[in-house]
């Protein structure tokens, strides 16, 4: 795997959200995220794609900058669309990510954990400095502990097998 310094960000921010299929490929320099998910070696023809399910992929999905950034962006969207209504937020998150509503049991579980995570952030001293940095101005009234908790729920959603695998 490569150092971050080997992959400087493109200067044009519009380039940042392009789909990977349009990305310029250097033959000896596979994109780290692609390589993690079994991109074939680009210097030989590939007759058969491989598919592995291994820990470095989980590390990328649980910890990488990209996934965490998207989780926060998802949390911001939910807060903007559903405001204080946590139950509505969970409902909306499930619809957006999985194209279905959560079952009552699932909703209950999510709300229970959201409460737990929020409590952890309330107890955590670092909380005041974190969420306030990434929430947009329009959401400055939201409790940082709640925003952090919601972002972590979104992170969990991106790791759901139902989200990752096509049924």
């Amino acid at each position, binding site marked *: *795997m*490569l*150092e*971050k310094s080997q992959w400087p960000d493109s200067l044009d921010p519009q380039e940042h959200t392009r789909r990977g299929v349009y990305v310029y490929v250097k*033959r*000896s*320099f596979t994109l*780290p995220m692609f*390589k*993690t*998910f*079994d*991109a074939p*070696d680009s*210097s*030989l*023809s590939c*007759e058969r794609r*491989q*598919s*592995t*399910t*291994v*820990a*470095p*992929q*989980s*590390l*990328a999905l*649980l*910890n*990488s*900058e990209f996934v*965490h950034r998207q989780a926060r962006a998802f949390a911001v969207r939910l807060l903007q669309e559903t405001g204080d209504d946590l139950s509505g937020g969970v409902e909306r998150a499930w619809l957006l990510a999985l*194209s*279905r*509503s959560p*079952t009552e049991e699932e909703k209950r*579980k*999510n709300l229970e*954990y959201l409460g737990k*995570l929020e409590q*952890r*952030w309330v*107890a*955590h001293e*670092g*909380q005041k400095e*974190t969420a306030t940095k990434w929430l947009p101005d329009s959401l400055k009234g939201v409790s940082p502990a709640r925003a*952090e908790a919601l*972002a*972590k*729920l979104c992170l*969990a959603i991106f790791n*759901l*097998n*139902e989200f*990752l*695998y096509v*049924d």
Partner: protein
Amino acid sequence: MSDYRLNDLVCTGEGPWGHSRRQFLARFGGGFGALAAVHLLNQEGFTTFGQPLSVNPTAPKSPHFPAKAKAVIHLFMHGGPSQVDTFDPKPLLSRLHGQPAPPSILKEQKTFLQFTKLSEAPLLAPRATFRKYGNSGLEISNLFENVAQSADDLAVIRSCYHDAFTHGPGVQLINSGVFRLGHPSMGAWVVYGLGSESENLPAYMVMVTDGSISAGAPGYGAGFLPAIYQGTLLRKKGTPILNARAATEFAPGEQREVLDLLNWHNQKHLADHRDNSELAARISSHELAFRMQTAVPELTDVSGESESTKKLYGLDNEATEPFGRNCLLARRMVERGVRFIQIYKDGWDAHANCDENHAKNARAVDKPIAGLLTDLKQRGMLESTLVIWGGEFGRTPVTDGQANSEIRTNDGRDHNPYGFSMWMAGGGIRGGKAIGATDDIGLRAVEDKVHVHDLHATILSLLGLDHTQLTYFFQGRNQRLTDVGGDNNLASRLIRA
């Protein structure tokens, strides 16, 4: 009622109507069809197709025959150290210093070098001096006077050769047996063949001391093998392994809770999709990832090592600390079940002022390597750990550059893949011996020639793998690390006293 629950009702009854499309195809299509295919492919020897990768591609596997070595530490001297200054004494060079190479050597086959026309460059005597060490009397230069204390454990192969005379292809060739990109590196083959002994760490790890690797990441890549077999670079800055720490902060205890919630959902999902082994594999890989987060910092934290151990590896000295730390980490990796470790040390590319260059580089690695050998031996680990030393090629006995060329130097050496030295120790090897020989000036391997394929065959043998049986079906044939070579397998000679 949501679509999901409607779906649930329709798809959970008994009988053929009770199956979802996925379940139906898996049981009645993929089920029998796949079984038959696996059977056929196994018969054809295409076992990699029959093995579901998603189950656990790095589960420990039995070797083909009892192994001498369980782990490998490859000390990669990047840039290409000169054999005539280190492990291949050539007294004639000192006598003929400044003169052209002897006609008997020039008239042989044409020799392509990067910058140098062999017939127009004068011979260059090394400043380093050789003497005999240990009971065996193995000759080693004063550049490696510390390593030389373990002379009786070293098997020096003085007749290595190949034909890639620039760095990138040379590194690729030493690693994968092919100078082009795309073929799996030796470490990837070994993990493919033997699996991993470590639950929480990658089986193939790579460290880089100074500079970078000419071949880049493909040098330790998996090529056409599944990506899981590629080497993992231990990074010098930030978290040692990419993504081993979360990009944004978790409150204390929060990450575990997020994972618990995730598992709760995934287990429910799994209950409805029992036929898909990938889903269960993904759940367990999340748990492994969680454990890796603590295993990696634990590995790289050497504060628990004794002062005498740190000193043994040269951690108390600025010149030896960077490579010494990597050697110490390598020992810690072997202790934790890592199978294949490469430590690169860049800087040996001495086109000018070879004496100074090699003195500096040898100073940086000699004590740490000696420390590694001593430490492994003291801990009873050397018998089962194969240590390999060498570059991507050696260097010329003549000075670098052509006559009248601007890049000509009178004290440097050019790349030389036609004859160079590597050594091995541990892993069952009975040392104190030199195998093969170069010609009188140390240019070409002439006796008992050992190609890279032969080196690879030897290393695999010591690990209990038959290089002709370790295959992967790709592009129409069973590919091997050793391609169609590897006939000069040294293993049986190396393990004899």
